[in-house]
């Protein structure tokens, strides 16, 4: 958990995320948003990302040399999308010798679902980010804020079956020591209206659904929380969080298992 008092409060940070159909780029100075651009075009991230970064910097009368750090959403999300964001971030950070901070794209999405007014009033809020992962599945997790918690991950990011996950959310809320006053589902909520309603059926608290994209300013804000703690990524080794093995690898491992445990000695399965 982060204590705000020790936070470094200035330094210019370039933050972006391309893990979904949205491309979002922001430049922050500490917690202050200096400028942000946002567009939707999944197949265009590899074309638009770098020129849009240049454009935003130019608009702010800045150059790459004015930046003090890079923050990026490392997924989960579209495999190609997160690769584009992560590769641009690590290459940029390496080339300019800048610190790099990776944040969960789901956390950044969830952060947008926290009502700052209610938070100040002491309400405990849970935000559940949703990214459609096809076949009834979602990339999701549970994040919380409010009461004594400034910002916390309650259930880690993963790919889950939405119908089953909705039940889990209700159960978690019911059994939580610090019960949420509100649970906000945020992101691609439309395909999952039915499952979200099932949460309301099983749990008495307030449930909200917000259709929203990830915003780079939230990638930046979450990055600042870790930046303040002195955390940095090892730039060369920085990779996306895919949450899953590549399909061919998963199948291969399953086949090895069928052939009998231990038959695959020497093969790393991590």
């Amino acid at each position, binding site marked *: 958990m982060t204590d705000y008092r020790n936070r470094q409060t200035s330094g210019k940070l370039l933050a972006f995320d391309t893990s979904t159909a949205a491309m979002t780029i922001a430049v922050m100075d500490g917690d202050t948003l200096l400028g942000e651009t946002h567009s939707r075009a999944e197949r265009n991230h590899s074309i638009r990302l*770098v*020129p849009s970064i240049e454009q935003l910097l130019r608009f702010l009368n800045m*150059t790459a040399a004015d930046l003090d750090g890079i923050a990026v959403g490392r997924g989960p999300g579209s495999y*190609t999308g997160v690769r*584009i964001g992560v590769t641009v971030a*690590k*290459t940029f950070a390496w080339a300019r010798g800048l610190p790099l901070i990776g944040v969960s794209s789901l956390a950044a999405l969830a952060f947008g679902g926290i009502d700052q007014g209610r938070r100040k009033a002491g309400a405990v809020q849970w935000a559940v980010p949703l990214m459609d992962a096809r076949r009834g599945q979602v990339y999701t997790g549970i994040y919380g804020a409010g009461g004594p918690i400034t910002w916390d991950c309650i259930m880690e990011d993963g790919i889950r079956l939405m119908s089953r996950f909705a039940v889990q959310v209700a159960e978690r809320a019911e059994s939580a020591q610090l019960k949420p006053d509100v649970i906000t589902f945020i992101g691609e909520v439309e395909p999952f209206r039915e499952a979200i309603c099932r949460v309301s059926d099983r749990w008495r608290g307030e449930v909200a659904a917000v259709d929203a994209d990830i915003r780079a300013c939230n990638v930046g804000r979450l990055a600042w929380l870790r930046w303040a703690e002195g955390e940095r990524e090892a730039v060369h*080794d920085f990779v996306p969080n895919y949450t899953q093995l590549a399909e061919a690898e998963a199948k291969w491992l399953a086949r090895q298992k069928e052939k009998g445990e231990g038959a695959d000695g020497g093969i790393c399965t991590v």
Partner: protein
Amino acid sequence: MNDNERLRQSPCFILAVETSCDETSVAIVENGTRIRANIVSSQMETHRRYGGVVPEIASRKHVENITWIMEEALNKAELKLGDLSAIAVTQGPGLVGSLLVGMVAAKALACAAGLPFIGVHHIAGHIYANQLVHKLEYPLMALVVSGGHTELVYVERAGVFRIVGQTRDDAAGEAYDKVARALNLPYPGGPHIDRLAHEAEAAVDMPRAWLEPDSYDFSFSGLKSAVLAALNQAKMRGETLEPAHVARGFQESVIDVLTEKSLRAAREYGAKQLLLAGGVAANRGLRERLASRCAEERIPLLVPPLDLCTDNAAMIAAAAYLKWNSGEFSGLDMKAEPLMSLEAWSVK
């Protein structure tokens, strides 16, 4: 001395990135000819267990490798980012997921370092690998043979490409892989067939696809089917064909067609040199036959060393130098092109 003259006098260092398939490579080449660094990280071991390149895994590996390889290239060349003149990258053709990693890494580098950016055609790279070791004389004819390509390319002057013949079905390298699989040879099969063919003292006779008399096109799917049929017929008779004999029969057919069509094209177009390019250029049988036939026909044959035949970024930097000289730079909004025309990439 004006700016242009000064530009020409100082050395041009192009850093190139190549990730079109399963090699992550970064190179720095001086003036399009002198290799200062050419780092290649092969993923062959990773893909071996799958019997071929898995695109998603290749893309993931590129992300893991890319900045390591960039740094290694700068260290090897004993240069700093500030010494570089331009950043180049393979624009296509290739696996889209793989291309994208190199593409956005190169863009980020060009943006971060404030350098001009050049997109390069992969096959132009294979052809210009020769420029790293030989002096090119135009017009020339290039035979490009790899896992994905079999093409005869006429290069009238520096950087101007015309495809005079190409495969109508499988690439030569693809045919090698399929035949190797039928013979139960380990992946990648090409080198094994080459070795077996060399050791064999007899060959199973195989057909040659010459196509129309005036055509420079190729076709290898019929040959592949003939190999499979021969193996099957032998099996039905309760016999097994000696794999080495099959390998030799297959390889001789491929080499005959490649060599004779290349020589005919070189003659007809008045080429001063015949260039061999692409991964299959590592094939010993093909190199030897081309060498002896070119000697007979008195056409100089240029072949790059083995490490410049397979995918590498030095060849991309060498080809990028063509565009540096013509002052044709790419925008950072360039698109990766999994299917890309070589002719359209020609210098203006």
